[in-house]
């Protein structure tokens, strides 16, 4: 507070300043950060866009090919398949975790539970673990012979349900997606619980007096109050679903037969294993644009609805 007052005083004293001067000084303060941003973010982005118009192996001279890479992308079954898989992963990364987290939020916050903090910390653990560790752990869980999942199923007499999870053509993608859900929902939960704690307890008391049951209270009070949190979680998780790379790299490498191939892994393969850096750049550009559009749409919709409210 004291420092802010001093600042205000300082500002007040610079009376004889020409128009625009203050802005210029402010830009000067921004300059160091901006330079770093230009060198490490904007220039590489511009370079990537440039390379996306070339045929380039990643280390010798690039050849200008215009929009060819983008046209090829539209015909590339592997790329289109990967886009589809990313869309499926969005469901696993956002819809399921948010639904699950909302359910748990309403259960965990309306009653005082002993050891509540322990539960919260436990549910958040997947989120702080490295994706590589998560992948290795789940590869073990899904191991058809020695993994606990199949052993539990067999132990319960459900032998017919035991599967080679990550190697099964139909189940591999949902199996990888389930890992995404497991990782993401702790993040959603922590934000939602924090959000709920801001809600005025009087609202619930009033609702109870009016005879609202738990579900009605949740729909009328909790959910609307959590709109900001839901938006943040939605955008963050959607982006992480679209960017999925490490999980695939560790668990399936895109297999079986490309059924878990995702855009970011395809990008990596093109850039680093088959020397199609130009094509990989085009994939990167498309992925970036899609992520920007998705984020923009979600945030705009959210702003509009909050204005209406």
């Amino acid at each position, binding site marked *: 507070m004291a420092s802010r007052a001093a600042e205000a005083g300082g500002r007040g004293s610079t009376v004889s300043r020409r128009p625009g001067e203050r802005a210029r000084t402010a830009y000067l303060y921004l300059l160091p950060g901006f330079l770093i941003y230009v060198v490490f973010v904007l220039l590489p982005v511009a370079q990537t866009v440039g390379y996306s118009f070339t045929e380039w192996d990643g*280390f010798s001279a690039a050849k200008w090919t215009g929009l060819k890479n983008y046209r090829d992308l539209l015909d590339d079954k592997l790329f289109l398949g990967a886009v589809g898989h990313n869309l499926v992963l969005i469901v696993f990364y956002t819809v399921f975790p948010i639904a699950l987290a909302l359910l748990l939020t309403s259960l965990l916050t309306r009653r005082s539970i002993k050891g509540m903090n322990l539960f919260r910390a436990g549910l958040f653990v997947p989120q702080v673990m490295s994706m590589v560790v998560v992948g290795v752990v789940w590869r073990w869980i899904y191991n058809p012979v020695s993994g606990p999942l199949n052993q539990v199923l067999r132990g319960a007499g459900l032998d017919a349900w035991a599967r*080679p999870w990550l*190697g099964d053509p139909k189940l591999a993608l949902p199996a990888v997606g389930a890992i995404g859900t497991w990782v993401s929902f702790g993040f959603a939960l922590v934000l939602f619980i924090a959000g709920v704690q801001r809600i005025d307890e009087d609202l619930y008391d009033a609702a109870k007096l009016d005879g609202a049951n738990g579900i009605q209270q949740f729909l009328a009070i909790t959910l609307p109050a959590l709109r900001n949190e839901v938006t943040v979680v939605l955008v963050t998780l959607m982006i992480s679903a679209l960017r999925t790379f490490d999980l695939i790299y560790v668990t399936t490498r895109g*297999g079986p*037969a490309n059924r878990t191939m995702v855009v970011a892994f395809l990008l990596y393969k093109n850039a*680093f294993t088959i020397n199609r850096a130009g094509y990989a750049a085009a994939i990167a550009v498309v992925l970036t644009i899609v992520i920007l559009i998705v984020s923009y749409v979600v945030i705009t919709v959210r702003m509009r609805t909050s204005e209406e409210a």
Partner: protein
Amino acid sequence: MRTGTHSRRTMLKATAGAAALGLAGARPAARRAAAQETTLTVWDNWTRDVDSAMIDKLNAAFTEQTGIKLNRTSKSFDDLKATAKLALSSDDGPDVVQINQGLSDMGAMVKAGILSDLTPLSKQFGWDKVLPPSMAARNSFSADGKVFGEGNLWGMPITAEFVGVYYSKQKMADLGLKPATTFDEFEQSLAAAKAKGEIPIQWGDLDGWPAIHTYGTIQHLYVDKAYLDDFIYGRNNVSFVIPENVKAGEKSQEWVKADYFTPDFAGIGYDDSWTAFKGGQGLYMITGSWISAELKNAADPGFGFMLMPPLAADKPNLHVAGTGMAYAIRKSSAQQDAAAQYINFLVSKPSADELATTGIIPLAVDPALAPEGSLYGDIVAAWQSIMKNDTAGHYLDWATPTFYDTIVAGLTDLFGLNITPEQFVQQMQDDYGKFLATQQGA
């Protein structure tokens, strides 16, 4: 296919005991005439503890002999693959790098003109005595990098790698079996093991690449060397759609349907599969010589190794085989002579014997260092028979720059019984035909 094998190696804990290293007595007189101090920067793939210690020991001996200092960095296969090209095209990159062969690595580097031609060195140092023509071919490209399998030598490997059949000696004895001498006998032994409730072939294909070795081993029974060389080196417009390849696909599916592989193999990783094999699950495991170091210290009676037996006893079949990664020299390096000396040192007999003592198979292996009846002895004998009969086949994924992904996907579906052998060979041909067309168009 070595992507898997090398990256896999990096994940393994070194289990072999520290080998007794020492080159005493084998050292030529030290050449310390070089007044100026020379330092070579070397990137290699010796990442396992035991291997790394061995190379460090060899490097120390090299420095003592020549006065040339070494600045060594070891990188995993994936790391090397991703960084070697940029490093070799930089003017202050490493002088010597172990590189992967094939079109998308060595071929691309030759095309970009960043590798030194090793052909003159090979003649000067007599490397051709260590590297037989079939092995030299896979390290050769035309000067423009377009034609694989002929032309100049761009990298010098020092080790051999090949795929064969490991067997549990205990289970062989329990089932009353002897190592098969024909493919028929081999299949009978599979049926016998199955009948006794044993897993005939331990296998995990979650990583995808092991299928290249399994299918390749079966396919190499039916095809001949001329066809396979043509196919890999892109010569004579051969096709993948031939009855032999279909037959190999049928045999693969026959084994799946007969439950000869580990149940649910599609969901089991390679490391999990060899660990299970080592732990006593399975009569056989079809995989590469690289795994021997992990299996050699198993409890008695341990494991034996044989090559896949031929269809007819008097007609030797081909085997999936090749060399380890190749040592290459950066063209812009100012230390060409020192780099050549270093590679020659690694190729020399004292170094080869050091590799053998560590349990690795040098190209020119001294059989005296491989005790008969031991796993290493079996493997060395197998390599010598491949060399003697000229039956080295190929890793199929080298056929085109994209063939690794294509064949891994196709084989996953083939072994998963999702496509027919005819569909499989057609899928492979789609990739291969497209590649041939661009080669000829270029």
